[in-house]
């Protein structure tokens, strides 16, 4: 029997296998940031252990950094100490760090691919659940906890139990105005926040093949929101052209490409589960609830919790509507927001900024709305400025910031206040995620831009009426 892509990558990283024990898997790239690493470095220090492979480890500052006045010390003392701790740890253990102010600083899942460090067939880990992003290159990319961060720093390996495999095939063609974000939000609504639990998902089919690398990263990024350990897409010419010429692209390019071309699921391989979605039927998707599975098409209304057959789903919907202050039957298009956030490891790349800027060009952000545009990395910022996108955002009345995770999780000053409501291109609409008492609707960059203009959840097509 043939093998799936995930199984091939797994097998090629197997250091040790024994019955009754987890597999010992080698890690090709370990990404580190300030929030989930301090206790791991402390553990090494206490045990007198070095970082085994600093040359396969890279760090950046992203989660708690401010996106304004970045040339000044961080005002929040606790955040500043955390960032300074990372700097000290990286210096002590010899880990390459891209600090605030560096041209290559940015969200960890944006800079890995940008530097060409993320490549097909690799194993990539990071103390962050959105590590699944890197699966867009055909890498097996896993989010891990701090105990595992310490384990990887010390041994460059992870103890892992084999996963089950799931294929999600997206047939057909995306219609104009429908994006990768709509694909993944529709997938999560279909299979649920636990639907991918225990699985590595492989996204495939013509609609996936047609996606750019950046769009593929958006899809893989949110695999964790369906509960999956990882999401992957087989590498192809789109992948190879993205990587060619990047700083860390292989010197022996031809040998690498020859290997990468073998990284496909065999025709006779069998997945443990299969899901099919038709891209032709997709329309812009938004969330109404407090987990990423509670979403529907923008044309719909807020659902009635009583319509859910499952008792737990019903209770969850009731609690979500109470938190979101929404009434069943309200048209999603009638929901007014006061904040629009464009950014994050899900949708903070140059293409996302271009898409939103195209909608905002010649238009104004509604007076009732504050729009924050936060590039995923300083390189993305630089590129956007070279293309004049920053001017489009500023002319429309949006704020133009420096790189970081920002309002996706509100660890820095970019937060929603109690009762505020956002349309956000990020990945989680959990209670209080963007600030205590804040309410989040997850959307694509196109919907975010159109919503900023109209002040209520909208698609670009709504601006043409």
């Amino acid at each position, binding site marked *: 029997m043939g093998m799936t892509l995930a199984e091939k990558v797994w097998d090629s990283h197997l250091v*040790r296998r024994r019955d*009754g024990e*987890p597999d*010992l898997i*080698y890690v*090709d*790239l370990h990404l580190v940031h300030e*929030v*989930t690493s301090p*206790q791991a470095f*402390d553990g090494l220090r206490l*045990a007198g252990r070095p970082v085994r492979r*600093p*040359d*396969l*480890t*890279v760090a950046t500052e992203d989660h708690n950094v401010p996106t304004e006045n970045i040339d000044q010390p961080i005002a929040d003392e*606790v*955040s500043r*100490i*955390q960032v300074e701790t990372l700097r000290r740890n990286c210096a002590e253990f010899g880990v390459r760090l891209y600090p605030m102010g560096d041209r290559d600083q940015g969200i960890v899942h944006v800079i890995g691919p940008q530097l*060409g*460090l993320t*490549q097909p067939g690799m194993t990539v880990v990071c*103390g962050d*659940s959105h590590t699944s992003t890197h699966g867009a290159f055909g890498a097996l990319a896993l*989010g*891990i*906890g*701090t*105990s595992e961060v*310490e*384990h990887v720093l*010390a*041994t*460059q*390996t992870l103890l892992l139990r084999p996963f089950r495999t799931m294929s999600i095939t997206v047939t057909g063609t995306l219609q104009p105005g429908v994006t990768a974000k709509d694909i993944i939000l529709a997938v999560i609504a279909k299979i649920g*926040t*636990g639907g991918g*639990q*225990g699985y590595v998902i492989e996204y495939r089919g013509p609609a996936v093949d047609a996606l750019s690398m950046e769009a593929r990263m958006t899809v893989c990024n949110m695999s*964790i929101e369906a*509960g999956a350990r990882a999401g992957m897409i087989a590498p192809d010419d789109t992948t190879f052209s993205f990587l060619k010429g990047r700083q*860390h692209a*292989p010197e*022996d390019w031809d040998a*690498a490409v020859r290997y990468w071309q073998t990284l496909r699921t065999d025709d006779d391989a069998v997945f443990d589960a299969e899901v099919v979605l038709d891209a032709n039927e997709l329309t812009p998707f938004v969330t109404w609830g407090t*987990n990423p599975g509670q979403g529907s098409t923008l044309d719909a209304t807020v659902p009635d919790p009583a319509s859910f057959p499952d008792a*737990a789903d019903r*209770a*969850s919907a009731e609690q979500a509507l109470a938190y979101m202050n929404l009434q069943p039957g309200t048209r999603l298009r009638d929901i007014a927001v006061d904040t629009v956030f464009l950014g994050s490891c899900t949708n903070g790349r140059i293409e996302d900024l271009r898409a939103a800027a195209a909608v905002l060009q010649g238009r104004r952000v509604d007076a009732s709305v504050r729009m924050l545009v936060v590039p995923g990395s300083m390189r993305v910022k630089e590129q956007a400025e070279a293309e004049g996108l920053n001017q489009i955002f500023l002319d429309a009345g949006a704020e133009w910031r420096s790189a970081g995770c920002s309002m996706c*999780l*509100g*660890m820095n000053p970019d937060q929603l206040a109690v009762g505020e409501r956002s349309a956000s291109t990020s990945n*989680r609409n*959990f*209670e*209080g*995620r963007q600030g205590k*008492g804040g309410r989040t609707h997850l959307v694509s960059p196109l919907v975010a831009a159109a919503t900023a203009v109209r002040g209520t959840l909208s698609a670009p097509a709504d601006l043409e009426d």
Partner: protein
Amino acid sequence: MEKFRQHTGQVAPLRRSNVDTDQIIPAVYLKRVTRTGFEDGLFAAWRSQEPDFVLNRPEYAGASILVAGSDFGIGSSREHAVWALLDYGFRVVICPRYGDIFRGNSLKAGLLTVVLDQPVVESLWQYAEDDPAAEVTVDLDARTILAGDLRIAFDLDDYARWRLMEGLDDISVTQRHEHDITAFEAARPQWLPRTA
């Protein structure tokens, strides 16, 4: 890591599903660089805003076993969620299904996470609500839970059980396989990227 063999304590019934790690501990509490002292962040929003929240009720003040609805610990990989539960005094969580990363983190950090079917979870909720002072015993050695007349068997793989019972540190176990790791490294393709 403390060894875990058997634990007896009161149950806090958390009748909610999809409890993500942002609810278990909001991001604002993740800025610390220490490994302990996260109990104040545990369910911070619910504890501060909902007087009826289970952990605000005096009859559940001493609970050390949390029984929750399905998909507990989904979302962010923050191990702080596990530390917050442990620091608050929980030793065991019981639920029908967990977020994968949370589950892995819990078993590495010494918090026993048990999977039981929804109907069993509901009977434990009922048990704890009928008599909040009633105790439950979780026996990892026998992989059994005793709650009054209820005797419930649970599954946990041998390896995870052994590690918990011995309180073992994964790193020292893995370092015994240094030879395998070195051999693997020697065979890695030369074109793979280096960060330095």
